[in-house]
């Protein structure tokens, strides 16, 4: 298809599109300019697509138009999903992106075989392997997030050897095809084996690892597109793929750092294995409080730090939390939200949910800032977060989460935890936070407890 590159008008349009893509990401750096960034991306995309339609090698438009129309019809509902469904929607879109590159790669292979240079065949193999594995892995991730598939990690003995063996087999096939690109009989295996690998890769992944895994799949989808750029000799694709690839990579690094784990550990060392060595159960008594009692303490506070976690998303409590924020702010209490990088199921998950509920974003603060604030905070209120608040991460060398950066809620004067019951968190670890003298447990569903707190706080003084 390098024909597309020989038309200067198309080339210039592509350069404009690439420039707009880069500006788009640059403008995303702050909420003030972010929407302009989306518009730049949209214009760039439109220019690139329209320019491509001018390509003289196109002999018929009917299937192109059908594809564009059907794709748009599928895309619109995917763009209108509930904010709580954003993690699974994101995983699904990684699957679609990877599906597209794998299909284009397959079509290119059958069009060009057997005369494919070693360089192009290598790029094609990378495109197909990454595309196929990202396709099935993302579908699996979406299934787990949507709870169609069990969320808990499934592990078995020798899992890593099986997985690595399958990946090695795919690479061997790729090497064979680079040397003998006419081996069409072998090509379907280059698609199927990575697809199997993609499924097996996600089987041992649990909910708490999803932020890292989604980021990594984002990166793979980008790299697959960049490899496609080498096959099609399109710098536009190479740049867009590289941008997506580096974005996903940076996010994966941030996520795995926030869990104090390496990539390999996330992918090949499911939490299931560390669970066995789980630290001794924390001991002590648990003090519980009713919403009435909690509201009394909150009324007397000057500053409150709310720590939201996945439990808030599950209970869909973000709108109640916003009412709670309003009730406290109205009383002159300073309220902030401490956001752990891996709170929720994808990077930035909590921020989006709270923004949806109209919580001003300047009230959402990052982990480091929150940790310097906690010692001055009167009440830290934990809503549906668990492992990211466990003080054992700081001092208990036997704890599986030892070394993980946490939100130091235990440094606040009073800690309140809204929780369904005493069941341990995802990592299967007891949270010693719950046994501190300063901690009050408020048992119940996040949404109804926060609702009860709001009622208490607004009932306290009648207009």
């Amino acid at each position: 298809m390098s024909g597309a590159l020989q038309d200067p008008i198309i080339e210039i349009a592509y350069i404009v599109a690439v420039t707009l893509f880069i500006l788009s990401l640059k403008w995303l750096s702050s909420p003030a300019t972010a929407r302009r960034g989306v518009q730049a991306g949209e214009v760039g995309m439109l220019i690139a697509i329209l320019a491509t339609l001018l390509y003289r090698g196109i002999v018929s438009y009917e299937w192109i138009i059908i594809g564009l129309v059907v794709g748009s019809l599928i895309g619109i509902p995917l763009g209108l999903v509930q904010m709580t469904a954003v993690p699974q929607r994101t995983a699904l879109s990684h699957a679609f992106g990877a599906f597209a590159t794998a299909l284009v790669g397959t079509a290119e292979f059958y069009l060009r075989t057997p005369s494919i240079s070693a360089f192009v065949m290598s790029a094609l193999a990378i495109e197909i392997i990454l595309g196929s594995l990202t396709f099935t892995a993302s579908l699996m991730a979406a299934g787990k997030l949507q709870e169609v598939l069990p969320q808990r990690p499934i592990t078995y003995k020798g899992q890593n050897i099986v997985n690595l063996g399958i990946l090695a087999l795919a690479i061997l096939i790729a090497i064979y095809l680079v040397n003998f690109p006419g081996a069409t009989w072998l090509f379907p295996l280059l698609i199927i084996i990575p697809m199997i690998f993609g499924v097996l890769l996600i089987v041992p992944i649990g909910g708490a690892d999803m932020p890292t895994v989604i980021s990594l799949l984002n990166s793979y989808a980008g790299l697959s597109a960049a490899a496609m750029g080498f096959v099609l000799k399109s710098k536009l694709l190479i740049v867009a793929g590289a941008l997506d690839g580096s974005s996903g990579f940076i996010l994966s690094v941030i996520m795995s750092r926030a869990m104090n784990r390496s990539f390999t550990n996330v992918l090949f060392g499911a939490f299931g294995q560390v669970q066995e060595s789980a630290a001794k159960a924390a001991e002590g008594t648990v003090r519980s409080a009713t919403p009435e009692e909690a509201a009394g303490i909150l009324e007397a506070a000057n500053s409150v730090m709310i720590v939201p976690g996945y439990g808030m998303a599950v209970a869909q409590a973000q709108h109640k939390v916003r009412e709670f924020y309003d009730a406290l702010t109205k009383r002159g209490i300073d309220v902030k939200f401490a956001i752990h990088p891996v709170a929720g199921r994808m990077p930035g998950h909590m921020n989006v949910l709270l923004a949806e509920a109209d919580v001003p974003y300047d009230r959402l603060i990052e982990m480091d800032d929150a940790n310097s604030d906690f010692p001055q905070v009167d009440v830290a209120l934990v809503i549906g977060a668990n492992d990211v608040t466990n003080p054992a991460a700081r001092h208990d060398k036997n704890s599986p989460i030892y070394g993980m950066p946490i939100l130091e809620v235990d440094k606040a004067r009073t800690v309140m935890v809204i929780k369904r019951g005493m069941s341990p968190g995802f990592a299967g670890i007891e949270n010693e936070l719950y046994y501190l003298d300063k901690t009050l447990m408020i048992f119940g569903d996040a949404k109804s407890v926060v609702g009860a707190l709001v009622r208490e706080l607004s009932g306290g003084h009648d207009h």
Partner: protein
Amino acid sequence: MTSEMLSNIYVLVLAAFLGFEVIKRVSPLLHTPLMSLTNALDAIAVVGAIVIVGERKSTLATVLGTLAVIAATSNVVGGFLITDRMLRMFKTSPRTGGPK
């Protein structure tokens, strides 16, 4: 290795570094929109699919290409749409800076 391949590798390396520098600056606040935006941009793969479909070189290529156009277009439309919806929700406190 032709000079075109080499120049494409240069482009890859430069774009990856540029991506690093630009994306490093994105506030953690916006990491979810970042992911949906890069996903939409990545769907630029649609241009490769359009060419394959339009060239009509074989039935297989046309079928696979059309499916690829559908998948990529749905990412373009859905990705930009949801990114914009998310960003519209991010509002600052009514009073500038908010209570201190």
